[in-house]
């Protein structure tokens, strides 16, 4: 069964690119436009990997990660932060929130695929 990735980003161009990239590699992709929507969709269906942006309306990435980690189904699901903020402060916060890793935007589709493959195969 194809692995499912939840892509959370308020920018639809980034979402489309992520979805296109991952779908072309055989993953199933669910999209959400902000943290709140991401959380709702994650609750509907447990995914294999969450890719989330940090700066989003309604709910930001860190809050989403914390909320996901509080769910029994998501204690061990890998969560990657896709963010333009590569500062150490953000990494520390991401780590504290429970993120598995981070990927700096802008990113190259191949790089994304490479990282995703490392995480969920």
């Amino acid at each position: 069964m194809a692995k499912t990735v939840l892509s959370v980003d308020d920018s639809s161009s980034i979402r489309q690119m992520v979805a296109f990239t991952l779908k072309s590699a055989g993953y199933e992709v669910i999209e959400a436009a902000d943290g709140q929507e991401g959380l709702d969709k994650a609750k509907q269906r447990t995914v294999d990997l969450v890719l989330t942006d940090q700066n989003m309306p309604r709910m930001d990435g860190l809050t989403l990660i914390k909320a996901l980690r509080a769910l029994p189904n998501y204690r061990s699901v890998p969560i990657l932060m896709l963010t333009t903020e590569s500062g150490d402060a953000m990494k520390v916060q991401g780590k504290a929130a429970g993120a598995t890793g981070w990927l700096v935007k802008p990113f190259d589709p191949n790089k994304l695929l490479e990282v995703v493959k490392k995480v969920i195969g």
Partner: protein
Amino acid sequence: MSIDITQFYQIFFEEAAEHLGTMESLLLSLEVNDPSMDDLNAIFRSAHSIKGGSGTFGFTDMTEVTHILENLLDRLRKQEMQLTDEMVNVFLEAGDVIRMQLYAHRGEGEVDQAEVKMVCEKLTQLTQDVPPVAAPASVTAAAEEDAYGFFDDAAVVATSSETHQDYGFFAEVAAPIQAVAADASYGFFDDLPAVAPPDIVPSSAPQDFGLFVDEPTQLPSTPQQTQQEAQQGYGFFQKVTPPPATATPVELAYAERRANERRTNDEGVARIRPASDKAAPAADTSIRVNVEKVDQLINLVGELVITQAMLAQSASTVDSALYEKLNSGLHQLERNTRDLQEVIMSVRMLPISFVFSRFPRVVRDLAGKLGKQVELKTLGEGTELDKGLIEKIADPLTHLVRNSLDHGIESPEKRLAAGKPAKGTITLKASHQGGNILIEVTDDGGGLNRGKILAKARERGLPVRDDMSDQEVWMLIFEAGFSTADVVTDVSGRGVGMDVVKRNIAAMGGRVEIESAEGLGTRILIRLPLTLAILDGLSVAVGQQTYIIPLGYIIESLLMADKDLRTVSGGGHMVHVRGEYLPLLALREVFNLPGDIAQNDARIVVIVETEGKKIAVQVDELLGQHQVVIKSLESNFRKLPGISGATILGDGKVALILDVAALSSAPARQNKLAA
């Protein structure tokens, strides 16, 4: 695997343009002294998204500008800096520059590098103006630069420790996974990542995910190790979804719990699926579709309407008793076609806020330049009209607003002297009125000066009389080469424009009217059809020809008795209708059709009204009311006076659509059409 990211350019362009728009409108509405945190955050997010997208899609020039902008915005929202008017201005300029870059990438226009440089300098200047926070900003900048660099060293990433700049995994989070895998114990569901046995973390984590650990000291692993260990790691993750093939449950409790979980999961999925199918469109409330596709649909539906009309016409000749089923089917077809047409037309409709949204900026800039204080009010932004009209109305409307600001609104001193508030008001209002959309541009300025306009018109050699109605006098400002501005400014007053405005609006099938009161202000009304493509009309016959009169203009149709016809000295005829005398216009004469004007008692006239004037149009016969698809005569044939377009009737014949406004204007009646 190579992925072509150019396919996402278009959506990025649209998205970035949207973000720029959001940024601008938020900046304009921002209270400089007490900016709302939500607004600042939203502005920041917009800049941030543009930066992220432009970087990802390789538009680095945009990234550079947004980067500086974003840093400033970030510090503003973190309240490390105080917002000033100056900043808002520079931010707006930065928005313009980014938009310029965006257009250039889209292949429209070129980038003025000097301007880019100037804005960047201004932004940097702002950053440096606040010394205490300058240092953190530069740190951020340095960090960001690291991130940009990754496109180059992408190849090295997998095995090199440099990767930590691009992406990484937090050791502690990864650790429990590894720990669990190593122990072959699946008890991880109980353990929160943070609670993983601390002694295992340092030893196993770096081995497994060492490459991605963000602290360089934890990167001693060799690629090979990583490979092996990583496979273990993958294996682990795979077991999360599919049932473990060789489940060696160390803890029976786990297996049980796991099974339970799966069951509930499955149930959950089964239950949620149908709901999510429905929920999906609600979540993604819009899709972007190329306008060409929509236009294609509209054209096809137009053809369908014609085909349907043809069928209806053929069916009307057969015995309806014998072909009852056919007839009822055709009726249903007619209804469905009409519904389909309505829905498809609505796809092209956009709220007028698309146009109105540009005016806060226009007014702000211009008021600043002219030293006037002006408030802009917009009403009815949700009013929808055809996309084609939205695009075409923007320029004329801009001109009218600029004109109101330049000529209408007085200087603050003058206003105070006249007992008005120093701040003038310009109101933009849109509303539906029957089949029309009405756009009003109202100012509370000085109003039009009748004497001045008349004097100017004489000077320009325009035909004027002292007894012209106010309405006629006001319309003079739309004549070519007319300008009453005492001083020609760079804003308006060169006398180019108002005539163009009127012409452009007329080309859209619209009309302009002016209301003005000296000392109180001026209101310019623009009436536009809702759509360019379809029209409700009355078909009338004159001789062998069929004409369509747009329904919106028609007041009534009646049989004219001989006694009501009056001849006026000079050759014209008037009709006496309920106490009013209306000029009579015989279409047969207007279009020089052969045959005599019916002289018997059965003279049918259609009373139409436009621009406050009524005329009686004499025809031979009333045929019926139709919804017709407008086909442009200009693009298919050539422009004809008195005709606004053509349509294809149910029997396949072409019918011309009357340009009622042109017909009703006196000179057109006398000269142009006869020629």
